[in-house]
């Protein structure tokens, strides 16, 4: 069964006001195109979960879509502060729930594996445990040692960008495979955006590469360059000047509004956005190929 949708249809169908969403990808393949579509569709009161909110959630916050953030590191990676979210928290305008990276990913792991909690060893650091009632302790019945436990995170929707998938949603990812698998399995619905929709034969030529299986996928959208200004391993580089520029833009309400008007509201979809970025940017982000050494599955 084909699950092909346009991104606009997929967001309309699976993202609702008040939902908990998880836009996956640790610094890599961050699904910006989907976030921009959520902004265009004016979704409200979202709880946005991500280990690293990154620019993607700063933008959603700027556009007024966000009620609450669940996170473990709130920064503009390699640049500095995530100004809009930080400001919203300091002004008391946004709710937040905070973990360490391993706490956050353990919540996803519990959610993805159907467990009521995941255990973690103690780190000695006391303050976050005191601040967040979702971080509890239980006693190991074998040794009597106390471990930390966190509850499952089961978002309403996971949005995952992948390099290639078939029309059923069987998705292959390489490069940093942060928490895409866990986010997808943990969520009630899964939207895939893909650089390429390939024939099923390509996927079946390398089953060990498949990270997300069709059976948990609801919508498959072909959206090349979906991850800009972040990157997609083997397809394009991170647009570092934009990460630096955002530090500047995000200091002024007016600049933020202008940017949203021009780059989100002002374009129909990702194709138009990518065209608008222009040839100089396209060329700057290009990468030369570096192919994997093939493997032999054997024709049994």
């Amino acid at each position, binding site marked *: 069964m084909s699950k092909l949708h346009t991104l606009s249809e997929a967001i309309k169908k699976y993202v609702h006001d008040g939902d908990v969403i998880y836009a996956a990808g640790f610094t890599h393949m961050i699904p910006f195109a989907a976030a921009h579509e959520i902004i265009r569709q004016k979704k409200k009161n979202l709880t946005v979960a991500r280990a690293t909110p990154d620019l993607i959630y700063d933008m959603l916050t700027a556009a007024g879509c966000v009620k609450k953030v669940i996170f473990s590191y709130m920064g503009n990676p390699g640049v500095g502060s995530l100004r809009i979210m930080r400001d919203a928290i300091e002004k008391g305008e946004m709710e937040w729930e*905070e973990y360490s*990276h391993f706490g956050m990913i353990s919540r996803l792991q519990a959610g993805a594996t159907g467990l009521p909690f995941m255990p973690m060893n103690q*780190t*000695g*650091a006391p*303050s*976050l445990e005191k601040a967040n009632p979702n971080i509890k302790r239980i006693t190991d019945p074998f040794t009597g040692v106390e471990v930390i436990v966190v509850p499952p995170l089961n978002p309403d929707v996971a949005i995952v960008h992948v390099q290639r998938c078939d029309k059923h949603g069987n998705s292959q990812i390489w490069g940093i*495979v942060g*928490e895409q698998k*866990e986010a997808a399995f943990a969520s009630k619905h899964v939207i895939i955006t893909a650089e390429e929709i390939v024939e099923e034969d390509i996927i079946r030529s390398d089953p060990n590469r498949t990270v997300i299986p069709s059976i948990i996928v609801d919508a498959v959208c072909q959206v090349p360059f979906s991850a800009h200004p972040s990157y997609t391993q083997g397809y394009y580089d991170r647009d570092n000047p934009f990460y630096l520029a955002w530090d500047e833009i995000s200091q002024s309400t007016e600049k933020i509004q202008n940017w949203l008007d021009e780059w989100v509201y002002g374009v129909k979809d990702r194709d138009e956005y990518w065209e608008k970025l222009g040839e100089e940017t396209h060329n700057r982000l290009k990468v030369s190929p570096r192919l994997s050494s093939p493997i032999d599955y054997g024709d049994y």
Partner: protein
Amino acid sequence: MNYNNAELMTVNAARLLRDGDVVFVGVGLPNLACNLARRTHAPNLVMIYEAGVIGARPSRLPLSIGDPCLVSGATAVCSMYDIFSFYLQRGNVDVGFLGGAQIDRFGNINATVIGDYNQPKTRLPGSGGSMEIAGWANRCYIITPHQKRRFPEKVDFITSAGFLSHRKEREASGARGKGPQGVVTHLGILEPDENGEMVLAALHPGANIDMIQQNTGWEVKVSVNLRETQPPSAEELRILREDLDPTGIYI
């Protein structure tokens, strides 16, 4: 030989690494320090990045912890769950580098919030992986400029455990790692004493105890074995400047 504070700190951090160490690397100075060590006395250093990259050989200076140049040519990539559990929690990481807005007398780090947690005066990025690195890497090192506001006697919020209020308190907490083994600043190096208190263990050339005291928020004890570090060598500086950060992004 002239050098700046960033170079001085990077060179001294590099020297703390041992050949064969498995290091959890951050971007910026820790990344430079690891690459410098690998090109000098520690060719078998294994660099791990919290994004799940093992044995990275970046061909350019990574600009973020998830830079694609870390993956191309690495020996392995794994998921975030795996890097924190199979590698870090299991005890497979020898060294972690940490930073933060505040480091206190017992090496505890605050990277979360200045002021009240629920009504923060300044909201900082938060833990990321540093809570686990501080807890579980066998040894941790902190690289930071030596400024009074960065060295309060007690941090507002313990994002990552040093020795808490005493070495015994850390040991009782069940955290597997040995805690912070050194704080490398532009003036010298602090190291934990038998109680887990960070004391002055080494001065860089040109620095003195007064300068340390004036830039630290508590009465700093001085090790009876106070040593002076060797200045960065010409070769160390050449590698840093010509090979590792030729456009001077971090140094």
